[in-house]
């Protein structure tokens, strides 16, 4: 091992807002790539996280589906928009797990001591999980078509539906980022996410019509954000009045980010 020459080889330093922005984007890109590599490098995790949504489709399509009445629409067409939302909402939990793990392993400590944009850690984490969800969407679409799902509107509306769900899941990522930043470790982050995730995804219109639920639950079930997203997705993919449902869902997404992203950012800045 030879001596390292002393000449300073620092990168160009950010000065001015424009340069800072360019570096923030570059840092986010570098970290997003790093976050995605993890999903690819652990094939077991990739495999099992793909198996789970497939199982859900099969379970509801062939086991529970026969017992669920969905007036005016076949169950498979009712189900698949719900599965899209449920699976991507589950995918957003990766944001909590990934952040908690990075904090726990000390790699964020290293990032904090580098001359990189502070915002990039959270930006890259949520972006990576958004991109991961794009992959999930392709998988669900493939499985959905294979089990008999058919688009009732048109391809453009179907794709718009997927886009809207991705936006919604991205918003949820910021919520789960808050959990990840407060959790003491990645296992706890996961466990802490479930009490939020389960009522939202299952007490919703994703799998069964809200009208079939007890009346005390219907108020929550029909207005909570997952149901709103599912109803909007169903309208875009299968048919029905779209405009108000879609706007409501987008409003929820924007609202979640506006409220929870600052909480996550503040927590990231002050946690040591």
């Amino acid at each position: 091992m030879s001596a390292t020459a002393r000449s300073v080889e620092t990168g160009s330093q950010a000065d001015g807002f424009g340069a800072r922005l360019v570096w923030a984007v570059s840092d986010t890109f570098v970290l997003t790539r790093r976050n995605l590599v993890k999903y690819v490098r652990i094939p077991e995790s990739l495999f099992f996280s793909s198996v789970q949504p497939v199982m859900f489709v099969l379970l509801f399509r062939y086991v529970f589906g026969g017992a669920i009445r969905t007036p005016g629409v076949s169950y498979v067409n009712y189900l698949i928009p719900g599965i899209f939302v449920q699976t991507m909402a589950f995918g957003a939990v990766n944001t909590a797990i990934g952040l908690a793990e990075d904090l726990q392993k000390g790699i964020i400590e290293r990032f904090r001591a580098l001359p990189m944009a502070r915002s990039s850690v959270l930006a890259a984490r949520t972006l990576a999980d958004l991109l991961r969800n794009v992959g999930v969407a392709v998988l669900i679409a493939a499985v959905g078509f294979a089990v008999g799902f058919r688009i009732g509107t048109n391809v453009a509306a179907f794709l718009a539906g997927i886009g809207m769900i991705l936006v919604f899941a991205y918003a949820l990522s910021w919520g789960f980022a808050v959990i990840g930043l407060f959790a003491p470790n990645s296992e706890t982050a996961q466990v802490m996410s479930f009490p939020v995730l389960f009522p939202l995804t299952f007490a919703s219109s994703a799998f069964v019509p809200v009208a079939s639920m007890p009346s005390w639950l219907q108020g929550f079930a029909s207005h909570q954000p997952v149901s709103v997203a599912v109803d909007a997705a169903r309208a875009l993919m299968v048919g029905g009045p779209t405009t108000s449902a879609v706007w409501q869902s987008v409003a929820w997404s924007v609202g979640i980010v506006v409220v929870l992203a600052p909480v996550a950012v503040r927590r990231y800045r002050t946690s040591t």
Partner: protein
Amino acid sequence: MTYAIEAHELAKRFKGGVVALDGVSFAVEEGSVFGLLGPNGAGKTTVVRILTTILGTDGGSATVLGHDVSREPDLVRSLFGLAGQYAAVDENLTGRENLVMVGRLNHLPRKVAERRAAELLEEFELVGAADRTLKTYSGGMRRRIDLAAALVTRPSVLFLDEPTTGLDPQSRAGLWAVIESLVGAGTTVLLTTQYLEEADRLASRVAVVDNGRVISQGTPDELKAALGATVLAVGLHDAATAERAERALAPLSEKSPHRSGTAVELPVDGGPRIAMEALRVLDQLGIEPVTFVLREPSLDDVFLALTGRSAEGAAGEGVSVAPGSSEVGAAPQARPGRSAGARR
């Protein structure tokens, strides 16, 4: 005289009332190695985290190459390299990818980052493992990649927080050689350690930290002069005999002996000659030692000399000194922190 690092009356109190730093001041000359020596929990990591802008202070100030760490954190971050107490590397990336990533996050152009990563892999003898993920690396290899990551930008100031804690002797010697070559190249190094031997070998000045305070500062030789060059450690059958032995041995050295249980320790300047004399004195009294060892002074001896307490006592563990051991607190410790709920 120019100082590369200056810390002035640093204070830090954590939530829950832990006073981690209680007025720590020191200055590191440009191009020198400065050692912060202290037991587990003394506050060494907290000092490093403040100087590297990771943590804010509750009092005092610090500069790196003349720039205030709390007023110009962005600038300061571009000046130093940091290798932490726990190798902060990404297990799912290869060694090369880790180094390129750190280069890119230091805003080196991709090509430059790749070239620099290749150079460092060569220097740290990691070429063979360069394209394997870090999961397959040994503890020593992880430390090397971590140190390499700290050197990506060829910083002129380097912070090394317990770089060899928990390493086997061979890896430790390898890291020492790297650190020595860095110093030869003019890099300023702030090193923290629990090993007197390490501070002695690498640092030109040492500050001894205890409970968030600097309790002594000087060259390693000054520190050792206060201790005696060697320690004569004698183990006896029982406490009463140990007490007699302590009285009998006291006149042999200018420094005072220390007794704990059945063991007596005497800092001495003239090793073997005093050992012979000690055996003679004990023999005259009819005392036969169980163990009789001449050893290098350890951090524990520094603590005894400076505070009258043992270093491990300072860390709240209360383990007595084993005769013949030259290292204190050598066992790798569990990572403090999030999973233990201690850091929040």
